[in-house]
């Protein structure tokens, strides 16, 4: 008997005939099913769902949850993911029946509060970006990228420039950027980085041209570095008729400090589930609104909310690209971001970015003697180290990450961005107490020491987690993707 407890699959807890929920008795006269639905449409074998009691369901998931890390459990310095604290009250207010139990097709007059929320949030996000108009429809960051790229494409087409089919993307970019380009049929043109970690301006000049649809940029980029040449860059792209797309995954560094619109961007998407603290839920739901410039506003997907007198109404922008998702996006998610903005106010939002950046620099400076720092500049809300010194000792970044789990921390993002060898991307966020940062720094330093003294303890890590290191290649080689009745 060991502490590593494997929780059985819920299917393995099933007992024939057991029930976990009962419906009120059927109160209408029951008609035989095949009188209502022809035989050929009827299911022949009932689905083999687990047969468990409510207690078993609660216990199953309680046990599973206890195998899981979360921001509520401990530090989660996952770079590019902004794992900040998710205020509990935001959960409360968005689960009021007035939001959680309204139908998307109710008459507008009966959902004025919901429309007001959408209107306000759209305005606020436009203000934060220094842009004109917003759609709340995208369900996540990548979906926002898709929306933004479609808008750019439609804009060019509308202007008779449908031939523009190249999107410039720095080599440090997140995988969703090129993938989103592919989704709209754009060709990806990779832009190299310079030795300050920014876009190589000279290279960029050579890459732009008449087919340039635009440039997608994360700024600060995925190295956590602000591109000092941003104005030059946007000039270069705009000069050839291209548009600038801002991947707002890193907006936690710039709130109230600098606006993408002022940097020259035409489109920005936000990851509300990062910067605006809607909880990640184990991978979603997110919300990825985009704000766009005045020129692009008519192309936004619909519906958007407009204010007419003191009424709020749905409307479709003039040249709308159409619809990207059912209904109005992840309403209950972005409602939490709305709460977040109201909780912080303008000074609070600026403070968010200031402290997020201060935290990151503090950690970076306290770690750079033991982990290689590829670019030595002030970082923004996150920074990237390299495990290459440890690699020489036979310890990979994966091993460092796994060992951190033993200390009760989630690991940083690793092996991203791709341009840094053995990358370790750390984002502390502003919501962590200094004591946590200090403790984590100590753990990282202890691990660096261990890499010298006892590397096997790292390569065999983690030791104190619910399971030890899992065999990922076996999973991919012989995929078992579902439970099978045996």
């Amino acid at each position, binding site marked *: 008997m060991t502490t*590593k407890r494997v929780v059985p699959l819920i299917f393995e807890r099933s007992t024939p005939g057991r029930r976990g929920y009962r419906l009120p008795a059927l109160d209408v006269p029951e008609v035989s099913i095949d009188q209502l639905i022809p035989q050929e449409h009827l299911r022949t074998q009932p689905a083999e769902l687990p047969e468990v009691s409510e207690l078993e369901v609660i216990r199953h998931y309680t046990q599973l949850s206890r195998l899981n890390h979360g921001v509520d459990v401990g530090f989660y310095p996952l770079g590019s993911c902004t794992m900040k604290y998710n205020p509990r009250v935001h959960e409360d207010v968005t689960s009021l029946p007035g939001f959680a139990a309204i139908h998307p097709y109710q008459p507008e007059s009966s959902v004025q509060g919901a429309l007001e929320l959408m209107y306000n949030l759209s305005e606020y996000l436009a203000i934060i970006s220094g842009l004109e108009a917003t759609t709340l429809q995208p369900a996540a960051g990548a979906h926002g990228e898709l929306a933004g790229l479609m808008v750019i494409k439609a804009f060019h087409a509308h202007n008779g420039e449908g031939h523009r089919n190249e999107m410039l993307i720095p080599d440090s970019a997140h995988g969703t950027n090129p993938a989103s380009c592919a989704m709209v049929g754009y060709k990806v043109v990779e832009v190299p980085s310079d030795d300050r970690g920014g876009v190589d301006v000279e290279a960029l000049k050579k890459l732009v041209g008449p087919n340039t649809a635009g440039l997608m940029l994360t700024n600060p980029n995925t190295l956590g570095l602000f591109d000092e040449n941003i104005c030059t860059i946007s000039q270069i792209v705009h000069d050839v008729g291209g548009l600038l797309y801002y991947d707002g995954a890193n907006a936690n560094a710039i709130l109230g400090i600098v606006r993408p619109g002022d940097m020259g961007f035409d489109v920005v998407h936000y990851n509300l589930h990062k910067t605006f603290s809607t909880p990640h839920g184990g991978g979603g739901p997110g919300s990825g609104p985009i704000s766009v410039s005045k020129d692009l506003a008519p192309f936004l997907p619909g519906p958007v909310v407009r204010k007419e007198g003191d009424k709020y109404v749905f409307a479709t922008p003039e040249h709308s690209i159409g619809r990207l*998702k059912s209904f109005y996006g992840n309403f209950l998610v972005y409602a939490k971001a709305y709460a977040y903005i109201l909780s912080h106010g303008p000074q609070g939002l600026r403070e968010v970015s200031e402290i997020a950046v201060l935290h990151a620099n503090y950690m970076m400076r306290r770690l750079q003697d033991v982990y290689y720092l590829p670019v030595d500049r002030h970082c923004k809300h996150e920074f990237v180290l390299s495990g290459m010194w440890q690699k020489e000792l036979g310890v990979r970044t994966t091993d460092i990450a796994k060992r951190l789990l033993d200390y009760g921390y989630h690991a940083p993002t690793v092996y991203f961005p791709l341009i840094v060898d053995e990358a370790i991307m750390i984002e502390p966020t502003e919501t962590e107490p200094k004591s946590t940062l200090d403790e984590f720094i100590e753990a990282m330093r202890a691990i660096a020491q261990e890499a010298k003294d006892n590397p096997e303890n790292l390569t065999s890590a983690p030791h104190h987690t619910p399971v030890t290191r899992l065999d990922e290649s076996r999973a991919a080689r012989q995929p078992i993707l579902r439970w099978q009745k045996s």
Partner: protein
Amino acid sequence: MRYIPLTQAEKQEMLDTLGISSVQELFDDIPQHIRLDTDLDLPEALTEAELVKHFQALAQKNTDLNSVVSFMGAGAYDHLIPSAIKHIVGRGEFLTAYTPYQAEISQGVLQSTFEYQSLIAEITGMEVANASMYDGATALAEACLMACAATRRELVVLPSTLHPEWQEVVKLYLENQDVQIAYLPYDGQTGLIDAQALEGVNWSEVACVVVQQPNFFGLLENAACLGERIHEHGGLFIMAVDPISLSVLKAPGELGADIVVGDGQSLGNAMGFGGPSLGFFATSGSKLVRRMPGRVVGETVDTEGRRGFVLTLQTREQHIRREKATSNICSNQALNALVAAIYLNILGKEGYQEVGNHCLQKAHYFKQQILTIDGLSSPFSAPSFREFVIQGDVDWEEINLKLLEKGFLGGLPLDRYGLPGHVLFSVTEARTKEEMDTFTTLLRGLI
């Protein structure tokens, strides 16, 4: 209310460590002229108590379904939601976790996702399901793209009985990749895809045909023959299904579907003005699995041979394959998928069937009642599940406003979809006979 714990003293300590005198210095690399020199023009910060009041005030401007009885569906359904669900998904370990990148401390999310995949595979009768998509509509759009990639064809056949919003979404996704769409009209008498129209399609060029079951009007399409037709010509058969209906209706797997998608809101998720929900996505055959968009969790073992779960087949995904990925999706709707899984588990084999049957029985009863009203008729003859269309020479928008005052949310007027005088009613197991009878009486008075 700010959630920033740093104290002044600590801040000073950090600045000292950095050897700078103010945080502003850290932003010196931002060109001065673009830096904001005023506050953002946003409302001042609210405390927790003030925030609650603000939201309560907004909420009160909405008429919620706790205070009115709804017969509206059309993609968002008012099913009973077992209480246990919110108590589970409210646990911080589920709520505040990210995508399970560090598997060893994410077994809770990973195993529950594996179970979710298994449940979706089970109800759809397919081999494999992914970990979720944004919603049913985007899942369908991605399914069409996947079919194009798999068949190397660029024509998709869509039924006009597909939910109009889903049509829009699919169209937007496809046209951005220059995929053509052919629409199958429906038969005005049955309300189903017009069988005749099938003859007009050049099937050998078709990447896939889509059928929505039940269709937008709540009616049961003759899915099997569509599937046969497309398979004869080497294309893929995609079914967009309602997960509650699958407790009663033939599993898509049995009907030969190659890809099955649908929206999972009805599986225990709050209606939430339409989101967040989840799209489910299932397929069969290892060739198709490797083309599937989205995350998927697989079983493996740890160094001591214990069963464990990891994200797998990641070479399909954008963070590895970048522009060659099967999709750009990254974050999905994990927590909603968890809700759906808990829902299916707590309902269980019998409960799930019961829900389906109650919807069917009650919808049938309600339809009979509504049809007793003079001037109303049933325009379509095909059998239906929990939704049905009623026709009458009346202004349903106006009637709905009157019904709302009496505590009822009526059906969806189909005027906006080109069917004036038509309305789409939905009846779930949450409706009672008494509610239906009262509604019928009220409606009779308004016609």
